[in-house]
């Protein structure tokens, strides 16, 4: 077609820049950087997406799914996501929660380890007490009865006004939580040792709260300055409670009462200061005996060395009379609280194996001979841990130690990592747009 050729003849050869070759080389470099960034992005997505999917699946795992308590846990990453924090998701029902100051908050923080091996943080305000896990491991009960659903990340206030006090123990069927309600109204009373004590004029109340409905039931009104330990009998009919009485908390009272009416079945008013009710699982599984922790050593105004030097033992007393009925079981380290029983015989308790290292709390089974089997080990800095009652009762221990996933991070962590790449991409794009 000659017209086209004639038209084309109008065109003189295009003028070219001197550094045409150099421009091509620069384009090649930019392209390679772009490919590298794309490869990194694909790699990140390839690793992250399955993790996200796993977390999403975990969120809908039924709470009664059988699981195992891991034999060891690790300190979470500094950027670990909180429960329910996007995009990591909630993490699912807990196999345990431990409390440590080794997080980005530099204060006491709850770390939930899910039955699927996920790690999620629970932020605690300064001075906030540790919460408890519901028996099915699905909820974390925080101060003031705030319920954090670990499978969805939703947090809600149990109906009614917040209850400020110490959560003590769940009923055997897991429906009611015993709370020692603080009635001191902020009044500080000093005893002879100038240590703030509970005001004996304002004794605390023992309240059972139904976690399904929020209904509150007074089990005991008054009676003790405060309720430090409570344990529900395995058949749910009796409650053993211990706490200080008298001015300056000088006396201690141990009482077993009817779980429905609160009527005392028996009471020891001068419970020795070197003994204490062993914990929320103080009743032996058959309901016949109560575990009491006792020690030999410094009792009053002790320094840390004096407290560390105490020799501890586990006594078993008749639940009907309070009399010691078995040989004491010696304890080598520092006991925390009896939280369950293994094979109906070995007490399962939180435990500090080395007396000089109070911030290394483990979970152990104490044999009648005094030997301990470590069920859950923790890294240094862990000062408390909780295992859901259902897993304790089923004896599901020895699970594979999970490793905290670095990908279970909040969105800001991803943004922080991605920002240099995004900046480079933005600069490239802007330069390209300018050229066009």
């Amino acid at each position: 077609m000659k017209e086209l050729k004639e038209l084309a003849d109008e065109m003189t050869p295009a003028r070219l820049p001197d550094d045409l070759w150099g421009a091509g080389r620069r384009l090649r470099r930019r392209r390679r950087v772009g490919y590298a960034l794309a490869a990194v992005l694909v790699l990140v997505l390839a690793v992250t997406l399955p993790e996200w999917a796993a977390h999403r699946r975990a969120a809908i795992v039924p709470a009664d799914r059988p699981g195992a308590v891991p034999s060891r846990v690790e300190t979470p990453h500094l950027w670990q996501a909180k429960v329910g924090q996007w995009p990591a998701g909630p993490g699912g029902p807990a196999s345990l929660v431990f409390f440590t100051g080794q997080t980005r908050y530099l204060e006491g923080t709850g770390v939930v380890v899910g039955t699927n091996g996920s790690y999620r943080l629970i932020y605690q305000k300064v001075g906030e007490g540790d919460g408890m896990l519901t028996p099915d491991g699905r909820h974390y009960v925080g101060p003031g009865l705030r319920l954090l659903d670990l499978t969805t990340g939703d947090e809600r206030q149990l109906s009614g006004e917040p209850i400020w006090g110490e959560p003590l123990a769940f009923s055997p069927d897991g429906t009611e939580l015993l709370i020692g309600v603080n009635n001191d109204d902020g009044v500080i009373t000093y005893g002879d040792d100038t240590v703030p004590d509970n005001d004996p004029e304002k004794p605390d109340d023992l309240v059972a709260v139904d976690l399904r409905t929020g209904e509150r039931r007074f089990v005991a009104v008054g009676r003790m300055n405060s309720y430090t330990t409570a344990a529900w009998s395995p058949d749910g009919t009796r409650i053993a409670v211990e706490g200080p009485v008298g001015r300056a908390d000088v006396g201690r009272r141990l009482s077993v009462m009817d779980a429905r009416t609160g009527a005392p079945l028996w009471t020891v008013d001068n419970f020795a200061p070197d003994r204490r009710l062993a914990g929320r699982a103080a009743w032996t599984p058959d309901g016949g005996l109560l575990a009491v922790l006792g020690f030999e050593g410094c009792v009053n105004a002790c320094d840390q060395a004096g407290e560390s030097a105490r020799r501890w033992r586990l006594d078993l007393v008749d639940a009907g009379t309070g009399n010691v009925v078995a040989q004491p079981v010696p304890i080598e380290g520092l006991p925390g609280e009896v939280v369950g029983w293994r094979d109906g015989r070995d007490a399962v308790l939180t435990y500090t194996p080395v007396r000089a290292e109070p911030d290394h709390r483990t979970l152990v089974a104490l044999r009648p001979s005094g030997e301990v089997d470590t069920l859950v080990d923790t890294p240094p800095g862990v000062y408390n841990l909780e295992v859901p009652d259902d897993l304790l009762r089923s004896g599901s221990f020895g699970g594979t130690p999970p490793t905290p996933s670095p990908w279970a991070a909040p969105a800001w962590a991803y943004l922080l990592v991605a920002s240099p790449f995004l900046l480079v991409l933005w600069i490239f794009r802007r330069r390209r747009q300018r050229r066009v």
Partner: protein
Amino acid sequence: MAAEDSFRDYVAARLVSLSRAAYLLTGDRHLAEDLVQQALIQVASRWERISAGGDPDPYVRRVLYHQHVSWWRRRRLVDRPHADLPEKAVADRAADKDVEITVRQALRRLTPKQRAVLVLRYFEDLTEVQTAEVLGCSVGTVKSNTRDALARLRSTAPELADLREAR
């Protein structure tokens, strides 16, 4: 440096032909210069691979035509296309060449792909198969684009009635 030299030799040999094709594609000298520059920068960025394959022409041609289509797509977002471009822009440059004016105006009424097909077939003298390879489409698409382009040319420029669909 050998690669750079061979690239410079290639550009020197093919610049006229590339510039003319670009002019037919864009219908504007400045745009044609830009198009050639951009295409050659792309070619320079991959020159070692291109030259290793023997004849660089097919690849260079492909870059030029794809760059043109992609330009048109990108500019469409910022510069709205004109169905009827002002005639003044070309009328004063080629007042004495009526046929060329007619061809230029007719070309401007084609889509970028139709224009590319026309230039490849009737200016570069490529076969339908070669044209399909350059544009990365099927031979059927080349045929239909050629047919549509010629039909539009005939309707807008009856002087070009001697054009034939098939070579």
